[in-house]
């Protein structure tokens, strides 16, 4: 891996969508809590006039120079550079650090997220292109503090060794199981072929997906 995963000091305090607070939330929360509150107050009353699903900018986007993204079912407003990639936005502006940067060259899969249910590499996807589309990251899987069956099975089957590749693996697995609830081992392999595991933990990853399939 060319990058290590350290918390980014410049994060403007976005909260992530997972159930419980993580180690990072607590750090970020103290820095950004006030900002979030102020932001919410300022923009709350014009929320209604913001962009609709078709991606046409609404009042809020035009006046604040922000884009409206739909991430894990929530609307997120964020100021984005034209050359910015989705993985950058998710990690450093929306606080969704579950999505990893591995290679940053479409060659490892650590950054895999779903766009409209299909897996893509968010290191290679311009944030701008996500406007009007449903983005799902690994943080969007658990509901009300309850882990998703794929997450559960990755824990039980030791699907994560160092676990750096795990969020990406889980997103590819999710896309597969949404289309094919009863995959063969070969089909699981095909679905995970765009995700590298430096620990070589492939057998456990495949088992995790097969186990999850049985439970879903």
């Amino acid at each position, binding site marked *: 891996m*060319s*990058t*290590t995963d*350290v918390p*980014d000091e410049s994060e403007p305090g976005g909260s992530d969508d997972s159930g419980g607070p993580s180690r990072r939330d607590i750090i970020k929360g103290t820095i950004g809590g006030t900002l979030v509150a102020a932001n919410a107050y300022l923009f709350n009353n014009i929320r209604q006039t913001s962009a609709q699903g078709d991606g046409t900018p609404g009042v809020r986007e035009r006046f604040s120079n922000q884009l409206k993204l739909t991430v894990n079912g929530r609307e997120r407003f964020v100021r984005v*550079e*034209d*050359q*910015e*990639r989705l*993985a*950058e936005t998710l990690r*450093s502006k929306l606080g969704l650090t579950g999505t990893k*940067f591995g290679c*940053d*060259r*479409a*060659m490892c*899969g650590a950054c*895999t997220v779903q*766009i409209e249910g*299909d*897996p*893509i*590499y968010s*290191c*290679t*996807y*311009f944030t*701008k*292109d996500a406007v009007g589309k449903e983005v799902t990251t690994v943080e969007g899987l658990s509901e009300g503090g309850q882990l998703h069956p794929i997450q559960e099975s990755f824990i039980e089957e030791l699907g994560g060794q160092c676990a750096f590749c795990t969020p990406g693996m889980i997103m*590819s697995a999710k*896309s597969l199981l949404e289309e094919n609830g009863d995959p063969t081992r070969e089909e699981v392999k*095909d*679905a995970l*072929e*765009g995700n590298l595991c430096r620990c070589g933990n492939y057998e456990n990853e495949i088992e995790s997906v097969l186990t999850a399939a049985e439970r879903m």
Partner: protein
Amino acid sequence: MQQDMIPPLEHIDATSVEHAVRLLGEHGSDAATIAGNTDEINWLKNRDRTPEVLVDLKPIEELKEIEETSDGGLRIGALATLSDVQNHDAVNDGYSIIADAMGEIATPQIRNQGTIGGNLTQDSRCWYYRGGFDCYRAGGNTCYAITGESSDHAVTDYSRCITAHPSDGAVALIALDAEVVVRGPRGERREPLSEFFVGPEDNITVMHDLAHDEILTHIEVPSDWRGTNFYFEKVRGRDAWDFAIGNIAAAVKTSGGTVSDLRLVANGFAPTPKRLRTAERSIRGSRLSEGNIASASENVLPNARPQSDNEYKLNLADGLVKRALSNVA
């Protein structure tokens, strides 16, 4: 930030082909065209290319359509993703070789984003050129692959640059006699896909003949080869992600037990997709017997001049022809 930031640029959504052509004309060499941007973005990250403007074709919905034409052929919008092409009914029904090739490209994530047009217009994968070396192709005055590592490179039809053409989609489409439709400031033109690619002898800096302000809009597949016997195989270092070391697409028409016509097209051996005409000639008009196949698959690249570390590709090409002719179905 620890990853490679792309320098600031303006990302403009083209609303129509005309709009894209106009933007490319206005901004000239300051602009770059993108479709799925899976290839182009790496040049931007490496800062080997620093366009000020990206002209994005993605919003042009009409270029994403795949349809069966009235005579049973296919018309594929250049902006259709590789996954869309791979999974489309009209493609799988009669032209399965295209779907087979699509399924072997890169990974699901790249297939969901990369387009078929971009697969045909992608640049050389030579590791020196991609690594920022100032070789012939990059405007310098040497070929580092000839003096260095050339195991993935071309063995035939090259001149100063020995890059091999990387596209898997191209061979399947050429085997079906596909044509490309191109639009530019002077209107529309079309040509056989086999003539779309440009070797280093004609122009060492490009891989295809699109002008800067031309857009590849469609790929058209005539119905001539619909439902005939096909074979596609790709040989690579590992089963995912890797580009082809060599690949082959075969389309074979038989009547009364003899081969009436066939196409054998391979990539990985030359700077442009290679029709294996010697092998085609030797099998056209005869039966697909073990003996005929053996003689057709001998020395299929008669003019090859390999480097010492890619001589193995001669046997590979022979082997691929043998497997293709033995397994067409």
